[in-house]
């Protein structure tokens, strides 16, 4: 296995938090390496961002491209970690195979993944995540003229619907499981925070004419081999809509796998615990963005700046950080409170609904188990290719289990990669 020259700072994740962290770290003169699983920079929210194309990330990317001490590797993921605080090596997996990357400090900016909830028919092709459909469109999926129902929870649904509409899709409606009063209260909280008002106005313009249904959730999806209809429960009534895509996402969950491998402590809500300087419980490991708690792009950029400066000893540049952090945390709390998942969602799966998609383990089988570990041992739930990335958060919601037990390698590797040079 090839060993690359050590870097001062390895940034894991090239979304808003990671890119901002990289830029601020680079200003200290440190050698910075940014890696991401995607082929391009931008993460999910700025996916497809390019220094030559206008967009919110353009200036940041231009500034980064002007830094000779920042390097970028796409289609690259952390497979496992070796060593300790004084000599830490990331084992990176990419299409070229495995390589060792010694890193003095690490900034985790691994973001969040969508929470999927099982309901009858959710495994049908055509039922995808909400952020997922947005990502697929940004990666070239053509949805012009196709009928889409967006369902689930959180402000992401509106951004997704607006993006789909701009791409020419016919958005039949946005089903938000939270009641109207919660969604409205969140809107007011967001309006009190500077910068969110213009964003909201832009969304409202893009979504003109698209129905927004608070207090509404999917009951089941149906079709012969692929999605044909979705039935939504709205108030006491069930409505069935014909559609080509059901984009269903129930909020975001911090992606803490690399953090877990590094030994970082988590909060009770499952995010990476950090102090005011973005330092995790592990010396030399910092974290920024959604991995420390879901709070949106502005918060991610702010935390990226804090992590980038703190990891490179530029604390003097952070005199205003505490006040900004407090403002973002208020937004985060409003988000959590407004979009709490309603208990009815736990009753959606029927006994034969698949919960673990990799191993085809049903709700009937799983509800007889007592914990994530027992379910893994007895039913193979979470033991398949995705290693619990989808069913872990789902079983947390359905059965109250604590999803744990991350082990290397984090990504499935061809044996040829493991055997090379050994």
């Amino acid at each position: 296995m090839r060993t690359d020259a050590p870097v001062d700072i390895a940034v894991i994740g090239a979304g808003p938090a990671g890119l901002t962290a990289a830029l601020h770290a680079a200003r200290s003169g440190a050698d910075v390496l940014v890696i991401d699983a995607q082929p391009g920079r931008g993460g999910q929210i700025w996916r497809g961002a390019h220094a030559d194309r206008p967009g919110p990330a353009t200036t940041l990317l231009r500034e980064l491209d002007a830094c000779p001490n920042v390097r970028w590797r796409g289609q690259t993921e952390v497979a496992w970690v070796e060593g300790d605080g004084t000599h830490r090596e990331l084992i990176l997996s990419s299409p070229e195979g495995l390589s060792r990357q010694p890193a003095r400090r690490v900034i985790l900016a691994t973001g969040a993944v969508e929470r999927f909830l099982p309901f009858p028919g959710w495994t049908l092709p055509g039922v995808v995540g909400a952020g997922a459909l947005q990502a697929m469109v940004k990666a070239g999926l053509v949805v012009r003229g196709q009928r889409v129902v967006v369902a689930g929870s959180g402000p992401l649904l509106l951004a997704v619907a607006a993006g789909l509409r701009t791409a020419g899709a016919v958005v039949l409606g946005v089903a938000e499981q939270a009641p109207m009063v919660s969604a409205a209260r969140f809107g007011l909280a967001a309006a009190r925070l500077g910068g969110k008002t213009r964003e909201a106005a832009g969304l409202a313009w893009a979504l003109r004419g698209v129905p927004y249904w608070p207090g509404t959730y999917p009951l089941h999806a149906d079709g012969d081999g692929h999605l044909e209809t979705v039935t939504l429960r709205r108030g006491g009534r069930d409505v069935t809509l014909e559609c080509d895509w059901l984009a269903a996402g129930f909020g975001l969950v911090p992606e803490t796998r690399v953090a877990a491998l590094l030994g970082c402590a988590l909060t009770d809500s499952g995010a990476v615990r950090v102090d005011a300087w973005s330092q995790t419980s592990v010396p030399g490991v910092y974290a920024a963005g959604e991995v420390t708690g879901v709070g949106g792009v502005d918060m991610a950029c702010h935390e990226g700046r804090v992590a980038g400066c703190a990891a490179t000893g530029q604390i003097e540049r952070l005199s205003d950080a505490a006040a900004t952090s407090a403002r973002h945390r208020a937004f985060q709390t409003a988000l959590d409170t407004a979009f709490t998942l309603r208990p009815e969602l736990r009753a959606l799966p029927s006994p034969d609904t698949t919960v673990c998609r990799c191993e085809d383990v049903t709700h009937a089988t799983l509800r007889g188990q007592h914990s994530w570990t027992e379910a893994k041992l007895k039913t193979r739930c979470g033991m398949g290719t995705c290693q619990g990335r989808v069913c872990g958060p789902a079983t947390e919601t359905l059965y109250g289990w604590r999803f744990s037990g991350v082990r290397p390698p984090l990504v499935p590797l061809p044996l040829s990669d493991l055997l090379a040079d050994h």
Partner: protein
Amino acid sequence: MPELMIEGRAVTVAEGTSVLAALQNAGYRTLRHSRSGEPRGALCGMGSCHECRAVVDGRIVRTCVTPARNGQRVTLLTGDHAD
């Protein structure tokens, strides 16, 4: 613009398209069948669910994180590799 072979058929896509989007645009929404034979398509679109696996140039990859490139050969997972 990259031209790739999907199940033996030549398909041209825009620069920056993922192999997943190339498959979906070519009409392949069902990409594989699960262990018990359920039809499956992509779910997460960002590399975590692994539902969109297919064979690209002889390797099983997640098509959503694989850029479409000129001359690529893409085949769906069937038979022995079905899960």
